[in-house]
């Protein structure tokens, strides 16, 4: 297990290095000059040249790459062109919005999806199953940003229960911050919950057909207890896989949702940075997201091993 974990982490690191090369190469050939963009239409050539020098845009690409990657390894992601402050600092501020958002929605989607999926599986073919899976089917088809719009107009503008958007900052109080993240989290969570509920149901159905379920039933355990004690843990394996994949989707989803709710999170940061050609910020955020996805995949692998003893002895 330890050897497996070590191998997994090593692979993760190699993937990360390759990803960093891809990111840097891809973004270094961007057509467009950040200095020109920053100084605007009436920029003077001298001012432009000065700014380019200051930004280090005149150095060779390879040197900049190694500088960048070495910096990142030491926790220095460089300085934002537009904010003229350290990228790590910017990211640090934004993570406090994006990470809670992703976690709340992950929690919500799991809390909704698992019971619904299990319930539907236990009522297979009955009206409760048909209705919940029909709802899930529609949930999968709804674009989250459209759902977000509906939520805003319903809960913020109409019922005035929560803010329509924006983020007061955590120093405005935990509750105020949570309230601001609630609608975005719901908008993100619902479509994911629909997918997860469907996966949970089919995983449960698959497991319920296994021989060991029959063995457990032959022990005299009632159906309900077999469902929770024997089926659920086995059904968690595909559910975990999907959860891992979904975390990546959630991160990406925050880019859209943070724009709908104008939350100052990583998604907004990267989106703004793109339009302002603030490449160092783009690169930093992309690397962070990629690293997160890789880390989550490793966590999912650990989760597999916790759930399934067969995988604990894996090489």
């Amino acid at each position, binding site marked *: 297990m330890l050897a497996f974990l070590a191998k997994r982490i090593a692979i993760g690191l190699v993937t990360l290095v390759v990803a960093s090369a891809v990111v840097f190469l891809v973004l270094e050939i*961007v*057509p*467009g*000059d*950040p200095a*020109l*963009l*920053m*100084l*605007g*239409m*009436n*920029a*003077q050539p*001298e*001012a432009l040249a*000065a*700014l380019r020098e*200051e930004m280090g845009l005149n150095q060779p690409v390879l040197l900049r790459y190694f500088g960048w990657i070495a910096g990142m390894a030491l926790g220095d992601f460089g300085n934002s062109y*537009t*904010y*003229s*402050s350290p990228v790590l600092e*910017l990211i640090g*501020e*934004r993570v406090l919005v994006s990470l809670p958002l992703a976690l709340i929605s992950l929690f919500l989607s799991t809390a909704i999806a698992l019971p619904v999926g299990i319930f539907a599986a236990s009522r297979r073919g009955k009206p409760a199953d048909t209705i919940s899976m029909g709802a899930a089917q529609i949930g999968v088809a709804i674009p989250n940003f459209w759902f977000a*719009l509906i939520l*805003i*107009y319903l809960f*913020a*503008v*109409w019922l*005035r229960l929560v*803010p*329509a*958007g*924006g*983020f007061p*900052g955590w120093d405005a109080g935990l509750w105020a911050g949570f309230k601001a993240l609630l609608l975005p989290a719901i908008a993100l969570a619902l479509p994911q919950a629909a997918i997860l509920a469907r996966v949970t149901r089919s995983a449960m159905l698959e497991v319920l057909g296994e021989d060991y379920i029959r063995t457990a039933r032959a022990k005299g355990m009632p159906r309900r207890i077999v469902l929770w004690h024997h089926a659920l843990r086995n059904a968690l394996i595909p559910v975990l896989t999907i959860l891992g994949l979904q975390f990546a989707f959630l991160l990406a989803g925050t880019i859209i949702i943070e*724009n*709908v*709710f*104008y939350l*100052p*999170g990583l998604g*907004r*940061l990267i989106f*703004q940075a793109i*339009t*302002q*050609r603030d490449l160092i910020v783009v690169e930093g955020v992309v690397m962070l997201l990629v690293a997160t996805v890789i880390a989550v995949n490793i966590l999912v692998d650990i989760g597999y091993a916790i759930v399934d003893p067969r995988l604990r002895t894996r090489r």
Partner: protein
Amino acid sequence: MNTIKSIIGGATLLLAAGTAALAARTDLVIGVVLEPPHLDPTASAAAAIDEILYANLFQGLTRIGRNGEVLPALAESWEVSDDGKTYTFKLRSGVTFHDGTTFDAEDVKFTLDRARAENSTNAQKQLFAAIDTVEVIDPQTIRIMLSAPQGSFLYNLGWGDAVIVAPESAETNKEKPIGTGPFKFDKWAKGSSVTLVKNPDYWGEPVALEKAEFRVVPDAAAAIPALLSGDVQAFPQMPAGDALSQIENDPRFVVAIGATEGETILSTNNGKEPFNNIKVRQAIAHALNREEIIAGNGSGYGTPIGSHFSPANEAYVDLTGTYPYDPAKAKALLAEAGYPDGFKATLKLPPPAYARDGGQVVASQLRQVGIELEIIPVEWAQWLEQVFKNKDYDLTIVSHTEPNDINIYARDDYYFNYKNPAFKEVMNALDATAEPEKRIELYQTAQKIIAEDAVNGFMFQLPKIGVWDAKLQGMWENSPIQANDLTGVKWSD
């Protein structure tokens, strides 16, 4: 639909009742569209910086007033020599920066020398191009010598790019701005908001607000709910679009339609076939239906213009009748120019809605007279690179938001590729003239020249749609300069 409205109306009343209970607030949340890249107005062209800090936190020697007039600020008074080349400013005494350091003539000299230095990153270096030397006479007096007379010099000193900074804090202004204004910097939650608080040691009349938060609300989709839910109480420039009609009918809010310095034009590459032919440009001018373009731009506000000049300016002349909407005439002119069947061209559109939506309306209108436009949406960076820098374009739509910028038509390397010696002469004369009447006359001549040359398709002046809580007093209706001057703003009770 009606029921929706009545329910919303009901909710509105509830909120109105709720806020009425609060007496004389001293805090204000102002919505701004763009977040500033940093907080130093002397190191970026970004209007977002001035919109937060100008007049509130930073001050210049002069300031631009509500209606575009030049008023004294850190300079109490000034004298101009007869040849118009020497300006002597008497500075206000007892002024301190927010970090406690004293303001004096050395700070002014530092600021101006820094701005015009070789390695300056000031985005508007040309403002200071005329300065020859800056001389400290005594701590309260400074003399500026110009190499040539410049009529707009006092106005130029009122720009946000010319605010006075202290040598002690100049380098850190980007993160922690230190100025002389009635508000001082509190915090900047990046991506979200910039907060200013009242400066208790202000040299002038103290402001009514204790706290002003400038919250970044990027687009209409976010702005409307934010306004309706009361999160934001004022939008000096509301990206409201069509939803404005709904806000206008809401008694909680005041909608102030003012003028901006943003001339929205169909920029034309005068150096390229067939646009180098004045008949073609005139045909385009005749083909444009300004009313429809304005209507298609959402709010329906916006003043039609016939030249590159703000209707808010005292020197403005209405030239919209130069080439009135007349598709038949346009076709005829095209035929005269040798294009009886029209021609094909491209229209590059930067991201703002006025360009993307307006561009589709323009394309539809030009199609009526036989000009087929291929719409090419571009990002700002591409626009700057392709259109602005490399002049690789046929037509484009852009709003020129710099104040009083008609002189760009005199620049040879400007992206319009417009070259008219007569116009340049007028500009040179303008620079040499300080008399107000004379200057107005020259401005008007300049407006007429470019209108008649149909250099660009002159469409409309971007409206400044200010929306704020009805109980808020003292907000600026016009924006003669990119700023939100809060010195006179207070809550009525």
